[in-house]
């Protein structure tokens, strides 16, 4: 018996549907589709996280150390012991280096030698994100400039793009240089770039960033789009500057400057 054209087309159509249905039903990934991913209950929400550094409250070397140590300890940041291989998430530097072009030789001595707490600025327009060829670094919905280190290929474009020196490259395996590893957080491996994440793993639990918690009020953290947030209050009541704002990256870290002794001519 020969098959005519109509019957052949019907049969072909039915077979295609059958094969498709069989494939869909037999896929092993079904369970993954039955499951779902949710945000944690305690998650702190924001449109753009921001930080205000009240530099007036940083007085002794201890004030800087406790903030830096709090971060580096919980994030397993290695202490490489030499400036060339240094890995840092939060650090301090002089006015001249933090705000180049703003300094003058006649500025108050205290300010000239003051150390400023520096960290990733989580820019609203981050150049590191723009240049990353693998999208390993990306902007989260809450404004955090985040990195997916699983994707980092170590090309260091982001380090060249970042005007703030906020990114560190692991020239060596960092593992042996982490003295007391925090078993709840990963380390990094040789050949990836790392930086501050605004403690997104702590925000997910409803906690403030580690540095903010350790700073005793010298670091203020909050949503800059929220009028009632602590950062907005601090910005409304104080004169603040940002690092290299002329570059247009729109940094989210602000600095309240010291006014040593106030206006002595008054």
């Amino acid at each position: 018996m020969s098959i005519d054209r109509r019957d052949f087309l019907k049969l072909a159509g039915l077979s295609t549907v059958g094969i498709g249905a069989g494939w869909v039903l037999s896929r092993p990934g079904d369970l993954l589709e039955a499951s779902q991913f949710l945000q944690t209950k305690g998650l702190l929400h924001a449109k753009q996280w921001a930080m205000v550094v009240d530099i007036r409250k940083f007085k002794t070397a201890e004030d800087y150390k406790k903030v830096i140590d709090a971060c580096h300890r919980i994030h397993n940041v290695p202490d490489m012991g030499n400036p060339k291989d240094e890995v840092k998430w939060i650090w301090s530097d002089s006015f001249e280096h933090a705000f180049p072009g703003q300094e003058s030789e006649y500025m108050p001595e205290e300010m000239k030698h003051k150390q400023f707490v520096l960290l990733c600025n989580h820019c609203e327009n981050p150049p590191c994100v723009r240049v990353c060829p693998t999208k390993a670094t990306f902007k989260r919905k809450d404004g955090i400039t985040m990195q997916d280190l699983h994707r980092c290929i170590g090309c260091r474009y982001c380090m060249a793009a970042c005007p703030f020196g906020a990114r560190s490259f692991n020239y060596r395996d960092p593992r042996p240089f982490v003295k007391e590893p925090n078993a709840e957080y990963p380390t990094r491996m040789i050949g990836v770039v790392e930086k501050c994440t605004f403690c997104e793993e702590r925000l997910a639990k409803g906690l403030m960033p580690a540095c903010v918690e350790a700073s005793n009020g010298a670091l203020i953290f909050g949503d800059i789009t929220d009028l009632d947030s602590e950062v907005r209050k601090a910005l409304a009541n104080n004169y603040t500057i940002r690092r290299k704002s002329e570059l247009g990256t729109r940094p989210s870290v602000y600095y309240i400057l010291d006014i040593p002794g106030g206006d002595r001519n008054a």
Partner: protein
Amino acid sequence: MYNGGKILIGIIVFLLFAAFPFYNNIGKVSAKPEPKLDTPVIQQLAEKKCVEPKEFMKAEHMQMLNDWRDAAIREGKRIYVNSEGKIFNISLQNTCMNCHSNKKEFCDKCHAYAAVKPYCWTCHIEPKEKRS
């Protein structure tokens, strides 16, 4: 055929050499890997169940870990609701390895057998184990 004898000998020598792994291993059976589940945390569980059924985890844990990674890091979603509606915190170090604290007797058993080397542990910290 010119030099037929030499060519034939050459082919035979080549085949013997290329097939060396096969005849060398004939009759040798390497033990089937049996990952161990007797960690203190698993012993304490009322219901000894992983996040998804055992057969699924066996076949799909790599895909699942990739999905967990992407959900947690890229989407900021750190809670996994499994096919039964149960809730888990998405974390290799704090969830998976909390139960499976015996990496050498669990992960490594099959990975060594299958000669795969997942690079999880270059960054993620493996649980501390007593060497047995």
